[in-house]
């Protein structure tokens, strides 16, 4: 196979994926968008009746919504990691995943961004969380980690979006060349007059490098800031210095798993087996294994510092996690995030795509549970034993969380059909 043929096949295959969708696609899209619609209806219901429609109560003021917020922000992490960090490290296998990972990042932040709004008691005043000039001189409280969150997440979203878009400009030009009519005009507009001249390439490479370097610290900062929502408080089980690295590792772990979850079916459905090989999967499985070990280490350190502190209140929270009302979720989390990924030490399993897909689903579930355990059990066993209580989700909590998955997958399905799913230019570059 010579290079020219490969490039031609690549373009044909990728562009084939952007053709008119079949029945299965429409069915999938219908399914995910109805989940999203259900979530929206339940949200409207919750706004109308009050936050009590969800299952939260007095000790547990944050539950499924904030869990999902942290979960989706976490998912958003791998996009930048795979794109920017691996780009800087010149890891070639990244070109198989980077476009999907970046798209996943954008959609995950969009989904995540909804949850702070959903969980607000008076969502119609959400704009009070933004600093904007007003004649009453009312500003936001910059001491509040929630405000840091607003900044961190919006910054990350904007930078990721630009990174995503800049990376696609040469591909837009390829698409423009291959389509006609209205679509040609739209893709043309997005390609910003890309002609592939050497000057353009030089500028492009510089900008891309700059953006990658700029986005890399954000991988660390965003989830650190999110973790400070918890670490800055004095709630036992939250107030610990390990939270920032712990959350970042967890975020990369869950994000990597989500990339696998998305890419495996995508590769199958739009026939990209040629371009995304088991070798690529093996590389990403190594990242999964590595981050799993960090997460495991964090679990151990968290327990150790609780024990070492000698603080009875802190210890009680950890005892409660392991033996209390939510212990099944805790041990499921340990199974998914600690035990199962250890099997990836076996090289054959790393190359087994079905196995990887199954693991990735478990890790996703495990990481959602991890956030749930951190948030809910800490609040449920707070300082004053009189106020101890448990949270039970209602149909509204559950429906909105499921709806968020609906939104995410709907967006991803739209991406698959509207944008080139692999970076054709980078794939070509990676061949030699």
């Amino acid at each position, binding site marked *: 196979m010579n290079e020219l043929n490969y490039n031609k096949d690549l373009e044909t295959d990728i562009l084939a994926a952007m053709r008119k969708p079949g029945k299965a696609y429409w069915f999938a899209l219908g399914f995910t968008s109805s989940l999203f619609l259900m979530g929206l209806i339940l949200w409207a219901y919750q706004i109308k009746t009050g936050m009590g429609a969800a299952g939260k109560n*007095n000790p547990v003021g944050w539950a499924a919504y904030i869990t999902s917020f942290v979960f989706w922000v976490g998912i958003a992490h791998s996009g930048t990691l795979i794109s920017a960090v691996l780009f800087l490290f010149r890891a070639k296998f990244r070109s198989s995943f980077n476009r999907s990972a970046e798209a996943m990042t954008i959609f995950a932040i969009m989904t995540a961004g909804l949850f702070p709004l959903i*969980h607000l*008691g008076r*969502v119609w005043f959400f704009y009070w969380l933004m600093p904007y000039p007003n004649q009453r001189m009312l*500003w936001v409280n910059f001491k509040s980690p929630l405000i840091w969150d607003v900044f961190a997440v919006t910054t990350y979203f904007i930078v990721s979006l630009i990174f995503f878009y800049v990376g696609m400009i040469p591909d837009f030009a390829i698409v423009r060349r291959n389509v006609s009519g209205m679509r040609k005009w739209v893709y043309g507009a997005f390609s910003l007059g890309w002609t592939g001249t050497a000057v353009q390439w030089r500028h492009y490479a510089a900008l891309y490098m700059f953006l990658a370097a700029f986005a890399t610290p954000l991988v660390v900062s965003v989830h650190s800031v999110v973790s400070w929502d918890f670490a800055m408080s004095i*709630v036992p089980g939250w107030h610990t210095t390990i939270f920032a690295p712990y959350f970042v590792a967890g975020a990369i772990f869950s994000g990597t798993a989500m990339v696998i979850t998305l890419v495996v079916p995508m590769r199958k459905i739009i026939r990209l087996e040629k371009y995304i090989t088991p070798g690529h999967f093996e590389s990403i499985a190594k990242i999964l294994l590595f981050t799993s070990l960090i997460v495991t280490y964090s679990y151990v350190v968290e327990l150790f510092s609780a024990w070492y502190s000698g603080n009875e209140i802190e210890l009680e929270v950890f005892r409660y996690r392991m033996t209390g009302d939510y212990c099944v979720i805790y041990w499921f989390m340990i199974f998914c995030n600690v035990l199962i990924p250890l099997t990836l030490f076996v090289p054959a399993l790393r190359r087994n795509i079905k196995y990887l897909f199954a693991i990735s689903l478990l890790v996703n579930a495990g990481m959602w549970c991890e956030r749930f355990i951190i948030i809910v059990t800490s609040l449920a066993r707070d300082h004053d*034993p009189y106020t101890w209580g448990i949270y039970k989700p209602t149909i509204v909590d559950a429906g909105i969380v499921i709806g968020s998955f609906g939104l995410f997958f709907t967006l991803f399905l739209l991406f698959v059909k509207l944008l080139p799913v692999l970076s054709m230019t980078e794939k070509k570059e990676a061949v030699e």
Partner: protein
Amino acid sequence: MNRREFIKTTGILTGAAFISSCKGKEDGQGILPGIAGVSDGIPGQPVLYNTTCTECPANCGVSVKVINGCAVKLEGIPGHPINDGALCARGQASLTRLYQPGNNRIEGPLAKDAKGNSAHVTWDEAFGRINQKLKEFSAKGLKNVFLSGRTTGSFSEMIKLFCEKTGVERLPEFEVYSHSTIRHANKMLFGRYEIPAYKIEQSDFLLTFGSDILETFISPVHYSQQLVNAKKQDNFKWCHAEPHVSLTGARADRRVVINPGSEPYLLTFLLKTVKPKTAGLPAEFLNALPDLSVEQVCGKTGITPGALEYLSNCFETAERPLVITGGVSVSQPSGLQAAVLTGLLQWHIGAIDYTVSFAEAENYANTGTILNVKKLSQRLADGGIGVMFVCGVEMPPYALSADFYFNISKAGLSVGLTELKDDFSSGYDYNLSVAHAFETWGDAVPSNGLVTVIQPAVQRIHDSMSEGDILSALMRKSGVTDVPVDFHDFLLKQWKEKYGDAAVEEITSKGYLKTAVETVKTEINADSVKKFLTELKLSEPMQKPSIIITPSVRTYVGRSSILSLLSEIPDPLTAVSYGEWISISEKDAKTNGMIDGMEALIPGIFEKSGSEPVKIQPGLADGIYMIEKDAFFRMRLRNRIPAMLKYDEITGEILWNLNLVKSKIIASGKQMSLPVLSGSFSEHGRGIASGHGPKPHKTRDASMYPPHEHKDYRWAMAIDLKLCSGCSACVAACYIENNIPVAGKEEHLKGREMSWLRIEPFYDEKGNVKFIPMMCQQCDSAPCEPVCPVYATYHTPEGLNAQIYNRCVGTRYCSNNCPYKVRRFNWFKHDSEKPLDKMRNPGVSVRTSGMMEKCTFCIQRIRTAHDVAKDENRKIRDNEVLPACAQTCPMKAIAFGNILDKNSQVYKRASSSRAYRVFEELGTGPAVYYLS
């Protein structure tokens, strides 16, 4: 006319037109609702009316705060001889009785038609028909009768007059707590069928048997206040002996658990061993008592020799001891023996006419017992009753008097003078709507030497009349002319006649009048004592297991259970809010494999599945099952089992303690929904209520932020936990003062109560309980403040953690970060049912869905005090401003004030060696100090 002149002229003309059109309405009606007889109501300014609380027979003095024609808050009258400013939870909540939603209150006179449906009639129709029936039945030779609940003072005279003029037979009145055993014993010993006044504050050792003096016994607020005064003596001791667990026992210096029904053994032992400081009982009486060894007493009563020795020592050292027996200790077969032996002991230790005063005896003169009701029931069954008036009687049906309940329909005509609908009211042929005490004139004589006024504070809400007016109208309509035109007229005549013209002004402004009492020299009736002693055979203690049906601090005997606020406030001992439950001991629960909320069956009593949940009660003796009276009635009603309670045939006391022969509690295995608001009864070594928590780190002062500067005021609170009895009066006061919504059972089950202030019970391993009132601690370094993204949590210059409701977006971060978890989120919009919305305090904003709220130290009161102080160009004085909780506390446990003022009460308490702050080790710097 130039331009300037045109404008001038137009301006003058327009102004003149406006001014001339400003005048009052022709019909004299203002915008605000007027108050009968009151013209000094300034809009927005509170007007206080001193009147009397009628929620229970104690008749505390209460001042009704009326703003814009609506009663918004009740507070005890300062200096009142009964309650001196304090009020219990029931008293606080009784305001909601006035504003009960329409479907609970009777909105106008109702008559039953032939089909048994109630329909509104006019007063004239009702009176005409009743008068006609009165005559008709008299002519037939049937008896017309008048049965009422306990009445005192002028209304009692009115009933007398009515009965005389219309030939109606007045029956002995019925009150569930008739204390007839005590009265019977006093009659036997001293020839007085009375309940004496117990002067607790004059004693230095108090021994109480079963009498729940802090909950429902005779005058709980009065006794609480007396206890506070008594505790000011260093050597005051109080021991409470009881078979179950009560707030009273929890607060006593020492609680002694005795077997139910074994009180006579202990009393006999004490009579034999206590050496009196005065003359004491003659030796012949003492010798006639059976000799008991320490082992025998301990064996029968179940108390330890150590406890017995403690009691002996206390009597030894005490100069002025006092013994009170009542409540559960007299409502059992051995009750009369216990009461008589108590009387003898009171005489023996010289308490009679000193700490036990018949001169100021409680007024139960017209009160009969359940036996009178039984007689009436028989007469009804025999068909001998014509018109039967029932006025202010509450008899929870089935459990007490199922036969009476069913026999009401056998009266020729039954007429109920009814305020709120109850189980009985549906059975009456006529329901005449009675006005609430705050809408009418009246008076009460709770005890000898005291008369208190009942006066209208608000305009009547419904088409109702006072009981006195109904009787006088009935008389006049029947053609009797030589009676006062209305009850107010009658009342004035009575007051002038009894207390002189000058007293009228005093009684209406102050709310009460102290009258002279005769000194009483009590004599012991030697013959009846001898007769009693020769016949005395100490009755055996009750077998276990036993059910003890207890009084309830929240619902009294059940009459207050209609006030939903009292169900919203959890029972302080169990932290259960709504519903009924059976309290069992930890061991009983273990042997039956039961946990909180598991359904219990008791063969013979609660057999049907779906009956009652259990609650484990630490400190409860094994084999004792506790049920609150009100809960017991409701359980019985639901199970539709007729009465099974027995009565003492001699005294007429209801025997509330049930022996379960060969029957015990069984777990059905089903879990029921029981709203237990406490997450744990143990403080897990965190020192919340005991003060023995971890010590704060020394380096805690290091902070990123500069310390708060407080210029003139730093508001703080100091709560003496040795005084707090857990009575929850503060909680009720807080709810009403701050417009806190009632969330309901379903929300409580989800853990979403709205109380800003709560009583947390914490038990130790021995089952002793400590209560701690928990409200916003107004921390100096408040964890809630920095986390709010929109600055809705704000630190005021006076040290309060203010919550700006309209800035709150509802992230709930502040609540998560609050270690005390005292912040409350509005999960829904809570609308109060009309006309309950009338009692909203206009000084406190009403919160809506999605925002956080919490205790403010009653900032509205602080603001008012600031305004007054500023007008007078001075600082706020100590005790000038009190939050609702501190104001109402019967034990005066809560001190509030400016901690920067070194002379303030709060500063003095906070600098006591007993003072500690909850979770001080967190460095939050709370402004609430607790004294362990």
